[in-house]
């Protein structure tokens, strides 16, 4: 653990000190880039407000992400059930991905109103596609020899799905979930810009108040939320795959 934590920590400390120095010496104007100490102070001073905002954003992110995971895997399974279905519907999944979230966020407000529902929907829309795409790739790239083997012993498509194709797709599913987790945070923040609440609102309001230190404090918390999600999925992925998958073998 020490070895994985230390290397990324060094650039962080160096960069933080460099920024702090630059701002204090007047190389950078503090209304453009706040000193790290000022951001830290904002975190402490506004801790009650920020904690509440973080909690709101976290719940919306988690809810949207959970929906993405469930829907994404289900859709991928349905798409993989036949070539014809895949050809007919996969382009729409891609289309869904290319629609800019910021453009449809107002629509989400019209449909779901101001508040949590819109934020969850936004997190979901932003994060569902990578789960679909990666799960589908995983299911479709199942070893043909093993598919033959299941066929030879008379396995039904459903048995093959649960005993072969889904477990074989797990590494790709986790890849999708990792990407999706980061996107869910972004989706939630974008949703909050328009639908209100959470860290997104904190950023929006602090910006109008010229409180750039608070903007940075909120951004910092949002990043930490994303990192935590990423770490959590990595951990689950490691625990699940460590026994069998090459990418998780430590020795």
């Amino acid at each position, binding site marked *: 653990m020490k070895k994985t934590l230390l290397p990324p920590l060094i650039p962080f400390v160096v960069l933080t000190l460099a920024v702090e120095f630059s701002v204090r010496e007047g190389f950078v104007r503090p209304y453009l880039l706040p000193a790290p100490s000022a951001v830290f102070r904002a975190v402490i001073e506004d801790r009650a407000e920020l904690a509440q905002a973080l909690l709101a954003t976290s719940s919306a992110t988690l809810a949207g992400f959970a929906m993405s995971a469930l829907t994404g895997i289900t859709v991928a399974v349905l798409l993989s059930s036949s070539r014809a279905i895949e050809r007919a519907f996969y382009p729409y999944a891609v289309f869904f991905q290319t629609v800019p979230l910021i453009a449809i966020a107002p629509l989400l407000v019209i449909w779901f109103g101001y508040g949590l529902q819109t934020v969850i929907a936004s997190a979901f829309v932003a994060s569902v596609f990578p789960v679909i795409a990666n799960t589908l790739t995983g299911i479709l790239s199942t070893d043909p*020899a093993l598919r*033959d*083997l299941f066929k030879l012993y008379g396995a039904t498509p459903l048995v093959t799905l649960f005993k072969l194709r889904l477990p074989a797709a797990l590494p790709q599913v986790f890849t999708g979930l990792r990407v999706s987790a980061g996107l869910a945070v972004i989706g939630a923040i974008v949703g909050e810009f328009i639908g209100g609440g959470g860290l997104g609102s904190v950023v929006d309001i602090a910006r109008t108040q010229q409180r750039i230190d608070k903007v940075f404090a909120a951004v910092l918390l949002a990043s930490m939320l994303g990192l935590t999600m990423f770490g959590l999925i990595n951990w689950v992925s490691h625990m699940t795959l460590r026994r069998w998958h090459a990418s998780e073998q430590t020795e």
Partner: protein
Amino acid sequence: MDLRVDAGEFLAVLGPSGCGKSTLLRMIAGLDRPNSGRIVMAPAGDPFQTAFVFQDAHLLPWRNVLDNAALPLELMGVSKEERHIRARAALDQVDLQDAIDKVPAQLSGGMRMRVSLARALVTEPRLLLLDEPFAALDEITRFHLDVQLRELWQRGAMTVVFVTHSVSEAAFLANRAVVMDRGGGAIKLDRTLALPAERSNELRGDPRLGQEMKLLLEAIE
């Protein structure tokens, strides 16, 4: 092409790359259908009497050795208790009784291939089809598995059809060898090998084996 394989035979199928050896095997297994012509099994009936061993082990990496070997029985609906008993017996036959709790990532290439063999044997098949099963292994391991496969065949009442690129492997293992022609439409040579029933590594230096290899090689070229 017309080929008859009798019960209890150990047949090696040779031929140049792309002549359709593997396709022939897949058609016998029922994995592919012939465009024309037919394949008749006598007696017909239970499809699970056929087992197939691929070029690589193709195990389920998330399962341990025991559950990999038990997979065919599981797919056929055999109870957990019974399939574990039978999988243990199959693993005994390939000397893997001490590795049942390991997962494929912990095994060597030769051991994985033996799990694959045990998985094929677990249903006690009457027909065992092997598609270049040891081609990816190093020579020492392959020699060892050749002897083991031959012993398995002698112990059981199986018919074995063995597709291979290796003339020496075909001559060493089989009782009868056929050589397919380049187009795959005909059999160029169909020969009952004049070799003793007992095959051990001592046979590998035997001039009779060399003679058979020469004949097979000539037919391929």
